[in-house]
């Protein structure tokens, strides 16, 4: 019998390799990690013991809240600052700034994140850093809680404003010029045209870009880890750094995966916002 596959069956068969990979490298580790959150388990000691919700209770009774606060401060700072800078540069480029500048502004974005972080590590170094040299000060930018988070946000902003700029510039370039011309004819000035023409037109793309950057920053690791390692005294410890430290420096897989589970729940909320916005 020569059975022919339906289009639906064929589509499923094509998906098999992808699904197998997904199950092997995403679904299984994810489920395994979530399950580990209910056990006391070490990275180096053999065996594990079921502890129910104890790991979650420990976290919610202590480390979770300062880490959440740090993560939100970093995420908001490292999203709003590049958004504002990127938007301003996109407007300037769209208004006629020379095109080659676009390439120049993209430069920080093409440098690997770890390299950017090391560059800024030397800039901020308290004892032989460039910034103190220029300012003639002896400030411990990365060693004081008050300045460490600002330094981390500045570094991340430098690395990510170009992406924001490109996204917003693409949006601006889809805007019909006639809208601005018509508004000008009606007597609208530059600020009024920005508020009444540009902002409404850009709302969707700016919202998506902002939300995506927010989600990425919520998970961000390398800049913070290289610059401060989450210090001083936990002042820049975000979820990414806390999970890494707990699992791979503290060897405590139970608490690390429990913290990862809570972090993932928060990310799911953000993802729901993103999907809703994208489908709107």
């Amino acid at each position, binding site marked *: 019998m020569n059975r022919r596959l339906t289009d639906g069956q064929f589509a499923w068969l094509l998906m098999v390799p992808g699904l197998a990979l997904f199950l092997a490298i995403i679904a299984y580790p994810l489920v395994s990690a979530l399950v580990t959150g209910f056990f006391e388990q070490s990275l180096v000691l*053999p065996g594990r013991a079921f502890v129910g919700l104890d790991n979650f209770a420990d976290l919610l009774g202590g480390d979770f809240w300062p880490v959440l606060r740090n993560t939100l401060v970093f995420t908001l700072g490292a999203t709003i600052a590049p958004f504002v800078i990127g938007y301003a540069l996109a407007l300037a480029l769209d208004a006629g700034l020379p095109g080659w500048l676009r390439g120049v502004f993209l430069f920080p974005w093409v440098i690997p994140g770890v390299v950017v972080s090391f560059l800024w590590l030397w800039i901020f170094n308290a004892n032989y850093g460039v910034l103190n040299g220029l300012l003639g000060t002896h400030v411990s930018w990365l060693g004081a809680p008050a300045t460490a988070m600002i330094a981390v946000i500045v570094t991340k902003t430098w690395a990510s404003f170009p992406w924001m700029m490109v996204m917003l510039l693409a949006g601006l370039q889809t805007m019909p010029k006639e809208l601005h011309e018509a508004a000008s004819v009606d007597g609208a000035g530059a600020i009024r045209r920005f508020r009444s023409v540009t902002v409404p037109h850009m709302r969707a793309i700016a919202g998506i870009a902002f939300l995506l950057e927010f989600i990425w920053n919520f998970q961000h690791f390398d800049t913070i880890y290289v610059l401060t390692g989450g210090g001083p005294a936990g002042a820049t410890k975000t979820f990414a750094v806390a999970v890494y430290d707990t699992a791979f420096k503290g060897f405590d897989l139970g608490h690390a995966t429990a913290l990862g589970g809570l972090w993932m729940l928060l990310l799911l909320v953000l993802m729901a916002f993103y999907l809703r916005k994208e489908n709107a």
Partner: protein
Amino acid sequence: METLNRRAAFRLAGLSALGAALAACAPDAAGGGAPKGDAAAKRFGFTSWSLNEEAQKAAVRATVDAYAAKHGVRIDTASFPYNEYLNQVTLKLRGGQLSGAVQLDISWLAALAAMGKLKDLGAQAAKGGYTDVALSSGRFQDRQLGLPWTTGSIGLVANTEVLKKAGVEGMPATVEEFEDALRKVAKLGGGITPYAAATKAAQLKDILPWMRTFGSPLMEGDTITVGDDASVAAVEWYKKLYDAKLIAPDVDRFDARALFAQGKAAFYDDAVIARGVVAAQSPDKSLTEKMAPLARPVLKAGDQPQALLWGHVIVVVDGEGSDAAADFASYATSDTATVTAFFEKVKLPPTTTAGLADPKVAGDAFTTEWTEKITKTATPNPFWRYAGYAQIETAIAEQVQAVLVGQSPAKDALARAAETAKPLQK
């Protein structure tokens, strides 16, 4: 042109996937087919952080190459930065991706030994001619899991030229004299950090010998005593130095070495390796002549100076090529010509009686002085016996950092550190 129908396309995709899977499962070029635990294995690995450090990598490479040439084997080397080394090695060992010989800081042995994957090197230890103290640094629960590569201590190093300029006469012997010396150095200005003490969490474990200096035993029996009056006094003193800018913020061992190498620090903590490292970094070629080890100042005259034992061992992961790797570990740590040549290059004292007696080692004034002033009274860190020792030190370091940056009083912070450390004693 012939076109593929859907069925043919699917077969082709299936064959490609099968081919890729088979290729992925095939033995790799790295000698996956080497016989297990075979002394005649022609290929094995060697993981070492020293291969990542400018001052030592050439000397370590020379040892590796000499053994490879002599025995006709290939040694695949791998390296990670010191501050990331323990967790990288732990992850690789857990994931079955680590084989062959592995350099370890003696403080990490318990953590890796707890994983039950290290080879017993008792046979190599018995014939190596190591000193008893050195051998003890590679022993875990009565098994010889590491062969000692170098054994020494972490102590204070001074720049005598800077001290002379500041008007400091003689080496400070008490905490009070030490503080006076730091204040005199501070008056020199010019961006000099009087004491480049660790203030980043990664090396804040350097506070532990100061806690002992102030009278804290750190542990009594199985009870952690961090948080007692003596340890609180030590941290408050450290904070006083920090606030007076006698120690600098944002400093770890590597920053301290850089500052000292540039003549921008009068004192810092390091191992005996300090001379080789600083010499490699310093623009002042005569700096090593101005370096002097000093016994850690004591609280009152007559107290015993405190120092932490320090050293490297080479362990071997059980399994593929482990016998050959064990032979390499034995060669690197006990072959007299090799260890003395290694000493000449990096100034790390050997661990065998024959190596220590060699005129090149015994006649080295700096090493002899270091041994006499620092190693002689050095003791192990009491937390090393626990697999979670690194977590215990991190718990203490983070709380000391909280004190330094003014987030918490010393008493509260150390009480929290002790509370965090208690469940980690396993």
